[in-house]
């Protein structure tokens, strides 16, 4: 091995060791803990699969992801196109749009609570306008559907900027000459969008989708704050099993399910991305 290679490895080694110890090893022991049942190896998972709450949690996690991710993508693309026109004052709008980027899910949930709580501003406005006489309840076991939509709305509010910045970065890297050429050929705006911009944005869209889908399956803070276990989700159940029921085995089993879903999604997207690279040969 040449000297340069040795130096490079020495520089990287601490990172590898750290990640191996703090991510690799815990991941491995989660696996072991989830698989070691009371009597038989798969006891914990068998219990998990017989538990109705697990299927509910899986269902709600999938439903939330199914609502949130596509809406965010469409909104983010529209927003990025708007900001990228570079109108006067666009950088102020950029600042405003990116504020939620730095907010935690707990904070976002609290903000949403100020709006939707029984004494929240939406109810107050509607009551003062005389449109309703009693507050509309958005939270509570009786109103699961409303809770679901408030959670979805909060997540859309909170995480659309994340998709937006990735899309915007992709948009800015598109070569202007393509669009100028399209102008010469008399493309309409819609043609430019669907024939040039969106196809060139595909890599950015893919990585934004990957990131958002992964995080959508880890959704916890917003749900836990706004609905508790009325709307069970996978990460919420992991937390509940460990903190409230003191059952690390079941918690590990839930965690494994999340890890497994994560792995499958990453694989699908990476595979999709790679084939795309092969087709185009660039980027």
């Amino acid at each position, binding site marked *: 091995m040449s000297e340069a290679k040795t130096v490079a490895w020495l520089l*990287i080694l601490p990172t590898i060791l750290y990640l191996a110890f703090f991510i690799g090893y*815990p*991941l491995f022991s989660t696996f072991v803990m989830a698989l070691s049942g009371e009597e038989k190896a798969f006891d914990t998972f068998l219990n998990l699969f017989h538990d109705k709450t697990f299927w509910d949690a899986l269902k709600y996690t999938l439903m939330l992801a199914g609502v949130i991710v596509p809406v965010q993508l469409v909104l983010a693309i529209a927003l990025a196109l708007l900001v990228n026109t570079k109108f006067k004052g666009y950088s102020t709008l950029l600042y405003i749009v990116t504020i939620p980027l730095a*907010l*935690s899910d707990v*904070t976002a949930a609290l903000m949403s609570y100020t709006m939707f709580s029984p004494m929240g501003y939406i109810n*107050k406005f509607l009551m003062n306008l005389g449109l309703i006489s009693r507050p509309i309840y958005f939270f509570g076991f009786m109103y699961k559907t409303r809770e679901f939509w408030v959670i979805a709305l909060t997540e859309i509010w909170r995480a659309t900027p994340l998709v937006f910045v990735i899309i915007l*970065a992709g948009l800015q890297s598109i070569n202007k000459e393509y669009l100028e050429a399209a102008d010469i050929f008399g493309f309409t705006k819609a043609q430019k969008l669907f024939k040039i911009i969106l196809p060139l944005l595909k890599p950015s869209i893919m990585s934004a989708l990957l990131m958002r889908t992964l995080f959508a399956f880890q959704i916890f803070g917003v749900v836990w704050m706004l609905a508790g276990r009325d709307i069970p989700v996978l990460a919420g159940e992991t937390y509940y099993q460990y903190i409230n029921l003191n059952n690390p085995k079941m918690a590990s089993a839930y965690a494994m399910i999340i890890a497994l879903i994560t792995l499958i999604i990453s694989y699908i997207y990476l595979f999709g991305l790679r084939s795309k690279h092969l087709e185009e040969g660039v980027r």
Partner: protein
Amino acid sequence: MMVKKILFWFVVFLVAAWFLTPVVFIFLAALTPAQDYYNPHKIFPSHFTLDHLYKLFFVLDGWKATIISIEVALISIAISFAVGLPAGYAMTRYKFPGKNAIRLSILLTRSIPLIVLAVPLMVIYMRFNLADSVMGVALAHTAMILPFVVLITSSIFSGISVEYEEAAMVFGLTRFKAFIRITLPLALPGLAASAIFSFIMSWNEVFVASVLTLSNRTLPAHILNTAMTSPDYFKFAAGMIMAVPAMIFIFFTKKYLVSMWGISLK
């Protein structure tokens, strides 16, 4: 043309309102006296009060939690930059076998949910007497921040031409000195932005912090577990405290934001 222009600005206004309204209202709610908040006919308070913020800080131990949050974040940043910066440098400046595999596995660690790691980490921590400690949370947060630091520093360094370093080496500096005197100062603004971003990542993390600690809770963990059983206005005060640093951060790093996010998950 006029109609089009009005429509355009209407959309811009709508977007700004959509993103600002919840932020404005949590500030308003945090500063509203309790009797005004529970009065359905009062949208805007008769006067502002710092009472809730004061009580959250000094009666409900929010102050202690804030200090812990800051400690955790600073320790995590220190460790992850000490460990991650050299790796980021090596990833751009050196060619070696297995580089792509390492880059990919570092990227993959970013997609592993922290939720998965929290429970076994607790088991390890009990053995090493790190349970319920500031250091324990900081080490776990480092695991979350480190991959980000490696990837982001690598892309920051790749934006600085290697020729500056080589020129310095021609004049007799060692590679290390060339890095310290030439590359590092050039990289500093980008590094500062990513350090602030790391701070926010740690400041906002709630799951691991709640699992790993009981009495030494970070601010969001403290709020998730304690303040939620308190009256509404304490929750809003808590939300305001957590939102303020985040907004300041965005303001100061606005310039780097798009490029930082555009490259952080290639």
